[in-house]
């Protein structure tokens, strides 16, 4: 069952043909739908899945190095949101390409879309290192086809930077996973959930953690490794940018959450405060620096890309704080998940809005802009918005910490977001 849900996009990709692709556009919407329904079922039906629980477990020890897939309680909401974003962007693509029958390379685009989707789902359900890495790689490489779809000069350039950074990220990631797996003695390819404890228990742990932090950091738009993001987003087709920013960069975050030694462990062999401060520092640099760069951008989508780097910076900062104060990790974890989902949904809506803005008659533009103000204000975090909710979860923890400075700096990052949103609105007017 879970195999079907995850691999459905892959199977559908096999159906796509060059000749018939214009009649197959419904696949855009059909591919993520079943996963959305199932994940939503787990959330809304009955008691749901508690954070430690798993459902739909697949245990195939004859596949790869032993495959273990599950829908886990901690990630099921993110899974549902991811499926929802892919569905939204998929419906958008379906409508858009139905109107533009002249679109070139449509079959290739649809195939890459479906492969990326498979990878994105897989990352969220894979519980063993080998299949997790498989899906991560699939998502990374397939998304190349989305980035360069238009094959303009900037798109090809962005694609080159994207693939070079991706290969670097994969190398860092693979080193980290290998090293981490080595720390778990008795198994050649252990489960992801065993990694954090093993890393924590080893004196080499900080090095492994650093490799994993930077390896996933490429995907998560960590400051210094983020260069591909502002290049790739504006040149990719609108729905692709939407899922890149909304869903796929969260895969980097999920990687952090699943593999890093966060929280309290019975054995803690090394001190992680350096990496934690590194995360806080890079996070804040990302949060503010991306805003400083983004307000000078000339395209609405570039501004949104910088905004993604900025928002991911805030998440990185939260990660660092949680790493520094393990006793608060569970609360911060909840805040990060809430923040990630809030950002994913709102950012996707804004990206799709940019695309719709170009298509509709001038009379409807004001209406659209009013509608788009909702996700925009959400991102800024005005009172009673999802942004305020997610940030308040984190700020509640911050007030208990002996670090008043972080509270202030984190709070003022809202100004950075506001500046970016204003610039975005200016460009879109």
């Amino acid at each position, binding site marked *: 069952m879970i195999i079907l849900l995850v691999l459905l996009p892959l199977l559908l990709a096999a159906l796509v043909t*060059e000749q018939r692709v214009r009649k197959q556009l419904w696949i855009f919407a059909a591919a993520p739908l079943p996963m959305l329904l199932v994940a939503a079922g787990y959330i809304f039906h009955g008691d749901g899945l508690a954070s430690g629980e798993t459902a739909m477990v697949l245990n195939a*020890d*004859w*596949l*790869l*190095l*032993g495959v273990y897939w599950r829908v886990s309680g901690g990630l099921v909401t993110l899974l549902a949101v991811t499926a929802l974003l892919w569905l939204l962007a998929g419906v958008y693509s379906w409508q858009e390409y139905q109107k533009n029958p002249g679109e070139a390379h449509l079959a*290739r685009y649809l195939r890459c879309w479906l492969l990326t989707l498979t990878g994105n789902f897989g990352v969220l359900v894979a519980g063993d290192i*080998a*299949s997790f*890495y*498989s899906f991560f*790689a699939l998502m990374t*490489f397939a998304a190349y*086809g989305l980035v*360069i779809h238009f*094959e303009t000069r900037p798109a090809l350039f962005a694609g080159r930077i994207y*693939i070079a950074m991706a*290969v*670097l990220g994969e*190398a860092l990631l*693979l*080193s980290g996973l*290998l*090293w981490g*797996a*080595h720390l778990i003695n008795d198994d*050649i*390819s252990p489960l992801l959930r065993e990694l954090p404890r093993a890393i924590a228990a080893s004196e080499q742990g900080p090095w492994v953690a650093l490799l994993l932090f930077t390896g996933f950091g490429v995907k998560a738009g960590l400051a210094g490794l983020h260069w591909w993001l502002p290049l790739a987003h504006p040149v990719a087709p609108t729905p692709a940018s939407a899922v890149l920013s909304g869903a796929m960069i969260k895969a980097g975050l999920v990687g952090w959450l699943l593999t890093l030694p966060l929280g309290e462990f019975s054995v803690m062999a090394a001190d992680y405060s350096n990496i934690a401060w590194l995360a806080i520092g890079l996070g804040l640099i990302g949060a503010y620096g991306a805003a400083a760069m983004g307000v000078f951008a000339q395209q609405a989508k570039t501004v949104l890309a910088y905004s993604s780097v900025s928002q991911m910076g805030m998440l990185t900062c939260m990660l660092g704080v949680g790493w520094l104060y393990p006793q608060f990790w569970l609360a911060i974890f909840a805040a990060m998940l809430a923040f990630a989902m809030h950002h994913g949904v709102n950012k996707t809506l804004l990206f799709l809005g940019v695309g719709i803005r170009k298509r509709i008659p001038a009379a409807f533009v004001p209406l659209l802009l009013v509608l788009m103000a909702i996700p925009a204000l959400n991102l800024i975090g005005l009172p009673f918005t999802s942004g305020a909710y997610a940030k308040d979860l984190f700020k509640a923890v911050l007030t208990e910490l002996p670090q008043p400075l972080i509270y202030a700096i984190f709070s003022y990052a809202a100004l950075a977001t506001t500046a970016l949103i204003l610039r975005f609105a200016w460009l879109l007017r």
Partner: protein
Amino acid sequence: MMPEFTFWLPVVVVGTSLLAALIIFALPEAQQRTRSVLNIGAAVVKLAIVAYMVQLIMAGDIAETRFEIVPGIDFLLRADALSMLFAGLSSVLWLFTTLYAIGYLEGSPHRSRFFGFFSLCVASTMGIALAGNLFTFLIFFEMLTLSTYPLVVHRGTEASLKAGRTYLRYTLSGGAVLLTAVALFYGLFGAEAAEFTEAGGFQTLGEGSEVSLWLTILFFMFIAGLGVKAALVPLHGWLPVAMVAPAPVSALLHAVAVVKAGAFGIVRVVYNVYGIEFAWQLGVLLPLAILAAITILWGSLQALRQIELKKRLAYSTVSQVSYIVLGVCLFGPIGTIGGLVHLLHQGIMKVTLFFCAGNYAETLGIHRIDELDGTGKRMPLTSIAFTIGAFGMIGVPPTAGFISKWYLASGAFAAGMNWAVLVLIISSMLNAAYFLPILYRLWFKPQKQPWPDEQIAAARFETHGLLLWPVVATAVFSIAAGLFAAHAFSPLTWATLISVREYLP
């Protein structure tokens, strides 16, 4: 006393190809159908016997053929688990390469000669796989050198004759070094020690300083002799030049026959002559590992610079075969598994890549990488196979290459050789750097000029069936060996079985 049935099994395996070779030589050129039937028949028969012997070995039974040539020196063929790793690879790939070669050479001259030496080459490979001691190994090793030469120069052009001369110069020199080493070894340590035994014959020998000195010197003579075929830097010069050979020959050279014979010889010397534990104590593994690491990086760097598809693949082989050698040097069962399983994995993936290169050349006349633009649309199945092979070489899951790399790197960590992991990671990045641009050309670039020399028009399939289906089959194997790695009948499981036997006291 009537020898047991199993006594003759190894001889029959080698003999099938040998007999096929002799009959093919005798056949007139025009008898194409008979020759094809004979070729395929022999390949299938051999595959069946090898499969049967694998069953025997799983049950713990070992088939052995032994004749005394001169007092003290035996001709010994023995089917142990490690032989079957190599024999299995050869017999499976031989079948596919035969089918491919029949399609590839259709209508070209001298096919009788080609298939004759082709069979002879495979007979030598089987002999190498089954050789039970250094002497027998040497015989087949030299026989392989000689039977491959006519295949390299098959086209008879100036370039191929030149490549053939280079090939002979390198391999005969290597053979001479190996011969000297084997002779010295027999003289110093006797025939008993030269027999391949699981876990090696040396763990009980005293470690007098003179003995270890001789053993060290001989070890590096063995490596020098075998390293020519295994294309260890700086002995790799012949391999890229030999690219002028027809595609099935390149495929066979790179995946099974020559290069692998060298690597397999190194495996035999380290594990079954010296014994891994003893070699480790002797301190010869680290220098070999460093040499392998240099070769891995050097080969990848050179591959980056090539503009011809087959040359790039050739340098990639230089790099990939040293993964096997590196794995052999990683002291510990996991590294061993990685090295041994890569012997198989590299074989199936590289054969796929060379078949693809052959298909591009034969169907569209494409030889250079920059001519590949937009080929994905024209030849989708071949291009998918190429993509699978390329991702396998980079080590992206779920291909077979990922399994190799994962075990090699885990083995390096387990052996405390963390630098080797760095070598593997850098090499993977280099592999990505020279394979991804090709994939980009295949799938994303539009065709910008007419095909250089379109030979086979697109009909129901993109090219001749005999060229296409072997590629598809080996590509499927490349995925399956990775995807079902943990299954009971995977290469990984077999390599694990061998590794367990090599390390048990």
